[in-house]
Structures are given as structure tokens and as C-alpha cells.
């Protein structure tokens, strides 16, 4: 199966730059061209980030650092489960950015179907995380496919009210 290198789509929207990242973040992920395309407030959609390796963590941290040093107010939204894993593991993964929402994973053990649900990082996030997700195929209640006590453990470090919406 072919692997998917990092790619992005940029759309200026009023006074906000909207960016959607897709694929794997690795040592081969060169963010320099993207830094040139983003200025001012920016919203980054991370729903399609599929995997991040150890070199990719550094590439990403340096990218976020370059944007925030340049004065960009960065909001991260729809962080995929691999991104959330890094938010929980790496101290500086989103330093200087605001994490607005994550995609929580749910899994139907009967149909072996994966689902995600966007969870806004507000004071009700933990409750919404535990609400069952109904399987679109069989109607069964899918439970959160991660550790409830750990999945949002980064929240205290990164969450803050967001300013930009798409």
C-alpha cells in the first residue's frame, strides 16, 4: 500500500489563513514553503494527519515555532488521534498555539469500523468524549477507542478559547 507524504491546502478566508494538512509528518516534511504562505491569524486543520515519526515531531515543533515567532496566532483544530498522541507525549508539540478541537476515535467491534467525532476543547469536553457513538452500519454503540483518562490529558497545557472559525 502506497504511503502518503505530507501535503497541504491553503485558503485565505477574510483575515484568517486556513490550512489543511494531510499525510505523514516525517523527516521529509519540509514546512518552509508553508511558513511563507501563512501570516497573521491561521487555523490549521489536522484531521488528515495520519502518522508522525520522531523526526517529524521536531519538524512540526520547529514549524509551529517559526510561525509563532513571526507573529502568527495559530489555532489547531480537528487534531487527528496521531496528533493527539503527540500532544500528550511531547512537551512542546503545540507550544504557542491554541488547540481548539480534537477528533476522538470510536470503534465498532462488531463491524470493525472506525469513526471519529470532533470534540471542542471546552469545559464539557470530557463528558462529550464518553458519549457513545452510534455505528452507521449496525447501529451499535461504539465506545471511545482510547484511554478516557489519558486522551485529553494535554488539555490543561494547550486548551484556550479560540478566536477563529472556518
Amino acid at each position: 500500500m502506497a504511503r502518503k507524504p505530507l501535503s497541504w491546502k491553503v485558503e485565505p478566508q477574510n483575515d484568517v489563513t486556513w490550512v489543511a494538512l494531510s499525510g505523514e509528518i516525517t523527516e521529509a516534511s519540509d514546512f518552509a514553503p508553508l511558513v511563507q504562505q501563512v501570516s497573521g491569524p491561521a487555523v490549521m486543520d489536522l484531521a488528515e494527519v495520519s502518522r508522525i515519526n520522531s523526526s517529524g515531531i521536531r519538524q512540526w515543533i520547529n514549524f509551529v515555532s517559526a510561525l509563532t515567532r513571526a507573529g502568527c496566532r495559530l489555532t489547531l483544530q480537528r487534531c487527528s488521534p496521531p496528533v493527539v498522541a503527540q500532544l500528550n507525549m511531547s512537551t512542546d508539540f503545540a507550544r504557542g498555539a491554541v488547540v481548539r478541537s480534537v477528533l476522538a476515535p470510536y470503534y465498532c467491534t462488531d463491524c470493525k469500523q472506525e469513526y471519529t467525532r470532533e470534540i471542542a476543547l471546552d469545559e464539557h469536553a470530557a463528558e462529550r468524549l464518553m458519549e457513545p457513538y452510534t455505528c452507521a452500519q449496525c447501529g451499535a454503540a461504539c465506545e471511545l477507542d482510547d484511554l478516557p483518562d489519558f486522551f485529553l490529558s494535554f488539555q490543561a497545557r494547550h486548551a484556550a478559547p479560540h478566536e477563529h472559525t472556518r
Partner: protein
Amino acid sequence: MLRTVSAELEIGDALPPPGAPYDLALIHYEGLTADARAQLLGAGPAPSCPLLFISDGDCHRDLPGLLERRLLTNLLGRQNGATPKDLSVTVDKLLKGGDIFGLDKYLTASVEPRSFTIARSTQKEWLLEQAEDYARACDVHPRLVSLYCTVADEFVSNAVYNAPVDEHGNSRYRNVDRCTEVLLAPHEQVHVEFSYDGYRLGISTADPFGSLTRERLLQYLAKCFRRGPDQVDQRTGGAGLGFYCIYQSVTHFTVNIAPSRRTELIGLLDASGTYRDFAGKQKSFNIFMTE
């Protein structure tokens, strides 16, 4: 505590004192007194004999402190994690040494194992495709497929960039940008194995340098678990997060080292359930050394 000379087994609730002639101390971490835990974490002299921690979870919470003191070289997570076979293999390797290498010591394959040889760094992408295909063919949870690829990724990067040393023991490629192609001579190539026993997915890489040291491995893990400002290396080369990523992506991480001859990394992922089942398992970690 096991004393080889008299084949004696002692059971106690105190840590073995420094200098005590034990070949191995098995420590049930949750059974330690508060004083004994404090002693391990820095409030007193550490035991000098090899330690094998058996834990239901507390040990993981104290991991940063135990790594800082370089005491955690062998840990078996008991609850839903390590199997009796793992305990047997671990004790055998620690007491007898000898042939410590081989993924097959942990897994009896139920799906055809696969093996590969890596001769250049650019083969990594191809190998990750093989890893992904293998894990998918084993019909494991999709998020575990991704973790398996991450382990393969970090294992190969370590074997290709960090392991090779020159005749003086100096690293050849550690500080090389990870996008720069590295070629390995035939006698330097990396051996990779995939295996699955219907319960655990396994992967191993072996390099013929044996340059990884216990101290370096523990130093990197301690730095990452400390989560300080130095967590990510900014020098040219790796980010210094590889072992940490591996540890977080497996159920059991084993490192076998024959200094100057061979290093083998083994990763086992409990793939018997969902990602949540996997993430809830206690982790196991071993470093074995041989001559």
C-alpha cells in the same frame, strides 16, 4: 532474590543492600514499602545487583525517576501484559546470558514470518509499506497497523543512522541529516523480521555493530520522560525521540546488545483487541547484554 552460588531463593520485603551477592532481584513494585520506593527513587543507596521489576502499573508512574537513576533495565508489566513465557525468557537471559537474540524467543509465528535486508536508508519507505501490508494481513486494529509502522520506522532509522561506527567506535552517521542517503556495505546491512502469533505482532531489527550502550538508551528515555526543555534534540541528525516513540508504540520493548558485535531491537504489540485495549496494557521493557 536469587543467589546462584547456593542456588538459594530468598524472599523479603526490603531491597537488597548495595554489594549483596545476588545474581538477580525480582521486585514486585506494588509490594515495596514507601521507604523502599523512596530509596529506589533517590533517597538512598541503590541495589547493585541486576533488578527485574514486576509491576501492575505503579512502576510506569515512577518511570522518570527510575530511568534517571539508571535502575530500570528490566520491567515486566503484569496486568494483561507480560506472559509467563516472557518471565521465563527474561530470567533465563538475565541469569544465563548466552544466546539472548531472536524474536522467536517471544513469538511462535502463526502467520508466515517475513524477513528483509536493508542496505540503504532510502529502503525505509519500502519497508514501511511491507510492515503495513503485513500488519493488515494479520487483520489487526487499524491504529495498531500505524503503530507497527512507527516502530519499523524508528527501528530502521536507528539501525541505519545511529548504529554504524568506524574502527575507533566513532559514530559515522549519527549527526547526518535524516534525509541524506546512507549506504551500508554488505557486512553492515540490517536484518529485519516481522512475526505474528495471533496475539502479538512482533518486529525486530539487528545491526552488526553493537554500538548502542545501556547508558545511552536509558539517557535518551530518561530525557524524554522528564519532558523538560531538552526533550527534542535540535542538532543535525535524529531528534532524540526515537526510543521514546518506540516505547510508547509497543507493549514490550526489548534491546539485546553484544558490544561491538550486534544490537537487536525487538518490539511486540499486543494486537488481540482494540486500540484502547492495547493502550491499557502495562508495558514491559528489557535490556540484555552478552559478551
